């Protein structure tokens, strides 16, 4: 084993691979910091470049770019209230609220350091526990997947501040959007209205660009509200006082590390869901839940660690079983296959130095994140000082090119436009966007796992509670459903007593 670790190290620390990692880091920070361009897209755009590389530098490039983009997504979250990547959406309101209080440096410092901590934690878990942990995930059947998806959706609808009714509306509409296109079970096209570009379903990146970036641009031009302008604060002392904050929020960070890694391990659930679930769990157990959405450092720390931990954790099922944990690892698996390295149990026997190279690339990337992320935050001051009336047209062009780049069709720009309008009106009506987006992402998984489970059980609902893990997930989900009713009932009782 030692031989493989040493040979992996000598390959990874060669000047060429280090240069690749550095270049990917800068690229990832740039893509991640631009709203509408996601960590997934950064990885996808690297594919043609990594085509000419050996497996270790190729995967190292994608690992670095995705981790950096995941952190950099927090920069426009804090400065513009636009999540740079969907995984930053869970705590965008908190990061921006801190900026409004003149604490942008604090919120970005938390994001940077917890991102690095989460990424390193996930990488350590990946290196140490990959085989046993993945064997646990392997035991998951469609019943567990169904409840896990439902749990994610439920939390997203219920954690939003304001009314759960609007959360349910948002979730239902998002799930509905996910059913557009060919139904994979029956092969029947649903809600395509004869449009050929809708047959394959609504693709995710233009939807994200639409609801998160185009809607924000429309809002800017509709209101020209001085409150929407950038808060002019000094961005100095990113690391000042961070030691104290990190120590104070150590429980939240630990929770984010563990939950983020675990959710990353679960196939189908990635950084976005990890951030949401970790944020909502932190809120549920917080002593100051009222701060959430208004600048909670605790929520920021938990979710900031969780999304980067999930990026690392997602590689466990990807490498050990060849099952992608999220979209990013799906791309990585494809690239490894192109290079003749087959992810799966045999990769540890056939290409051990590749595996150890990947493990070490994670550690290097997440350590490199601290100095490079600091530079990115300092450059973020340029964004902070720029006027939105100048920035918005440029962002609009970026949104259009970014949508177009997904599959090189202008139809994607049309999708971004449509969802920009939808996102704008939802926001005006006070409907939260996040459950909508999560519904679109998880819709196919919920539906297919439900149908698969029903086929297995022969139409019996009892089977959904038969297996211990499924029953546990079901219990948590149903308790969250009942929580507003319980709160309502308790309030009634108090009113009656008064």
């Amino acid at each position, binding site marked *: 084993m030692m031989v493989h670790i040493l040979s992996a190290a000598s390959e990874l620390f060669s000047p060429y691979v280090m240069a690749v990692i550095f270049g990917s880091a800068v690229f990832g920070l740039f893509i991640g910091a631009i709203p509408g361009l996601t960590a997934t897209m950064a990885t996808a*755009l690297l594919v*043609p470049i990594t085509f000419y590389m050996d497996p270790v530098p190729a995967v190292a490039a994608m690992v670095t770019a995705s981790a950096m983009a995941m952190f950099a997504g927090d920069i426009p979250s804090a400065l513009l209230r636009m999540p740079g990547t969907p995984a930053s959406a869970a705590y965008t309101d908190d990061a921006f609220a801190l900026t409004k209080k003149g604490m942008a440096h604090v919120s970005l410092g938390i994001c940077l350091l917890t991102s690095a901590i989460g990424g390193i934690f996930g990488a350590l878990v990946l290196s140490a526990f990959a085989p046993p942990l993945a064997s646990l995930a392997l035991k998951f059947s469609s019943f567990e997947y169904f409840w896990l998806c439902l749990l994610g959706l439920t939390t997203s609808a219920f954690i939003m501040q*304001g*009314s759960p*009714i*609007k959360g*349910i*509306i948002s979730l*239902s*509409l998002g*799930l*509905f959007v996910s*059913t557009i296109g060919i*139904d994979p*079970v*029956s092969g*029947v096209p*649903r*809600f395509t209205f004869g449009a050929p570009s809708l047959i394959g379903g609504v693709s995710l990146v233009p939807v994200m660009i639409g609801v998160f970036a*185009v809607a924000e*641009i*429309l809002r800017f*031009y*509709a*209101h*020209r*509200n001085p*409150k929407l302008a950038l808060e002019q604060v000094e961005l100095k002392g990113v690391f000042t006082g961070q030691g104290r904050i990190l120590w104070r929020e150590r429980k939240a960070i630990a929770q984010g590390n563990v939950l983020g890694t675990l959710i990353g391990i679960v196939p189908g659930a990635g950084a976005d869901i990890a951030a949401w679930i970790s944020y909502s769990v932190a809120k549920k157990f917080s002593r100051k839940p009222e701060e959430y959405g208004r600048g909670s450092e605790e929520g920021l720390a938990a979710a900031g660690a969780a999304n980067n931990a999930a990026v690392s954790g997602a590689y466990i099922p990807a490498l050990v079983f060849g099952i992608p944990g999220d979209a990013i690892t799906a791309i990585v698996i494809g690239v490894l296959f192109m290079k003749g390295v087959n992810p799966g149990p045999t990769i540890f026997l056939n290409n051990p130095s590749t595996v150890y190279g990947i493990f070490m690339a994670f550690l290097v990337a997440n350590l490199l994140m601290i100095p490079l992320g600091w530079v990115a935050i300092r450059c973020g001051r340029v964004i902070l000082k720029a006027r939105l*009336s*100048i920035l*918005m*047209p*440029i962002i*609009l*062009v*970026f949104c*259009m*090119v970014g949508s*177009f*780049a997904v599959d*090189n069709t*202008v*139809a994607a*720009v*049309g999708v*971004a*436009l449509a969802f*920009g*309008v939808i996102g*704008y009106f939802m926001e*005006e*009506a*006070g*409907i939260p966007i996040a459950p909508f987006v999560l519904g679109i992402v998880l819709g196919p998984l919920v*539906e297919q796992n*439900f*149908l698969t489970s*029903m*086929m297995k059980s022969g*139409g019996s609902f009892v089977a959904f509670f038969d297996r211990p893990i499924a029953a546990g997930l079901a219990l948590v989900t149903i308790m969250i459903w009942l929580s507003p009713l319980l709160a309502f009932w308790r309030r009634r009782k108090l009113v009656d007593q008064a």
Partner: protein
Amino acid sequence: MVKFHDRHLGVVMVVLGAAITGLAMVLPGPITGAHIAYGPGFFPSLLGVATMLAGLALAIRGPQADTDSDASDAEAKGRPRFVAPLLVLGSMLAYVYLSDTVGFLPISLVILVVLLMVGGMRFVSALLLSLATSITIYLLFSKVLMVPLPRGLLQPWAIWL
């Protein structure tokens, strides 16, 4: 912005939910011979009903003080502008329908100049900034990221692009 009244929103959602349910109902039923009682319309009709019920609850309940905490924000915003957001929508539509024939560089240049001038910039500065931005984005995506941005009208000079 005239804040959407929650009751009106509820009614809209009931109608939307009913429409989704109706469209889902006309989808074909379960495949005969499949071991399953649910067709492609099952899940969407469930969502339609959920939307209807939530809309109904919203319409009956009406606005709540605690959920409309940013109502004062809405007051402060005043009436929304219409021309500027329509220009954004128009820009995107123009991109969808014209970018292939006109090409990325010209259309991005026009969109940027118009929107920058809406933002209060003078024509010459807007033109210079738009030129610089368009060319940078073009080089980044077309040359570095290999995205085939359309050349359009500039096709005769393709060798220089």
